[in-house]
């Protein structure tokens, strides 16, 4: 299977490979890191065959290295993705994905009566993990929502 993927998406010399992104999430991840506006070469694989996921998305971004903080953000979208840092065609570092404690300025609070909507502040949520379920608790209105119902600002 790995061989097939390698055949489909060209290797990069330096940069970051984000693999095992669930299908249909790749474009979101691209936007999350503002990579849709970059001048660097980005290789995007959508709906690639994957033994673990059935279908997966894959991003290869040249000359850009994902920070720990960005990896934490990524965990919210693709908790089982793998992030490899590539130098001279070799994996030099694998970033472990763990959920951030808080996430600011990414999601809109689903509570329409929450003060965060009409004031000059970033939305801010604390992450609560209960088993497989991830919930986000708004710093302002203190209501907690399932990750699935959150939408980006």
């Amino acid at each position: 299977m790995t061989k097939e993927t390698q055949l489909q998406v060209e290797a990069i010399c330096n940069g970051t490979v984000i693999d095992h992104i669930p299908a249909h999430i790749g474009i979101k991840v691209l936007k999350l890191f503002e990579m849709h506006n970059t001048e660097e070469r980005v290789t995007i694989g959508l709906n690639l065959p994957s033994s673990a996921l059935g279908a997966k998305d894959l991003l290869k971004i040249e000359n850009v290295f994902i920070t720990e903080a960005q990896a934490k953000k990524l965990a919210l979208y693709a908790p089982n993705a793998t992030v490899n840092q590539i130098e001279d065609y070799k994996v030099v570092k694998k970033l472990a994905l763990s959920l951030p404690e808080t996430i600011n300025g990414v999601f809109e609070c689903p509570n329409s009566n929450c003060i965060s909507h009409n004031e000059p502040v970033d939305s801010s949520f604390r992450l609560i993990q209960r088993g497989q379920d991830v919930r986000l608790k708004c710093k302002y209105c203190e209501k907690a929502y399932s990750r699935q119902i959150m939408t980006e600002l």
Partner: protein
Amino acid sequence: MANSLYQKHIISISELSREELELVVQTAGKLKAEPQPELIKNKVIASCFFEPSTRTRLSFETAIQRIGGDVIGFDNGGNTSLAKKGETLSDSVQVISSYVDAFVMRHPQEGAARLASEFTGGVPVINAGDGANQHPTQTLLDLFSIYETQGRLDNLNVAFVGDLKYGRTVHSLTQALAKFNNNRFFFIAPDALAMPDYICEELDDAGIQYSVHQEMESTMTELDVLYMTRVQKERFDDSEYAHIKSAYVLSAATLEGAKENLKVLHPLPRVDEITTDVDKTPHAYYFQQAENGVYAREALLALVLNPTL
């Protein structure tokens, strides 16, 4: 050393430790027994009510004046430049807080007090209710009333009756009492107004005992505190309401067999969920509870504005 509430924002009851809750309750008891009219002399407190709330506002403003502070503010946000000229809450707060030593606020939107605390430049914010979210001083006066009548805040059997789904007072009081040892809760509500799952999960995580009931009679002989709330008619259709209502009305007859020390509390206003014949029983304590709001708020303001008392 300064008390731990000194200059602290009071936004959400969950942020107060058991020791801090006890400190407020004990200070309230002292101020009730022995008034101290100069505790916050020369301090100016903003009392900003962006939505009307008669009892809470009068109670706060009485508390401020009884311990020697001065009040500025408004009782209806509709008349402020915020409403009339479209100023943001953060701008209003930034300006008003520069005039005062503490900022008491009520607002119809959830999170307003937390937001305000980010724009006061360190001036402590006291949340007097933010939408359906928090109303910490109600919980403090509830705790004070329980301590005053039971002599303790642990080893208590406490029933909550009525609207447990939307009632922020019952959520906060449950969370506060959960910080003390060996309290047991009885949740008595129609299914449609049951205690939310997230509160029950918190209690489960903390290993706190509770049970769920459809009527109050069967629990009566076990209770130390009966906390009543109103089942609002608007939440049901007429026939359903008529059916449900009677199970959640407390009358003097319902109290038969209750322990001598049982006290009935209610955040008020009451409509018809406690019949007036209960008022004359030794169990009724809701009017004293409302009066205790002044002492609890005096205590909180005194602790927030004085490093030591």
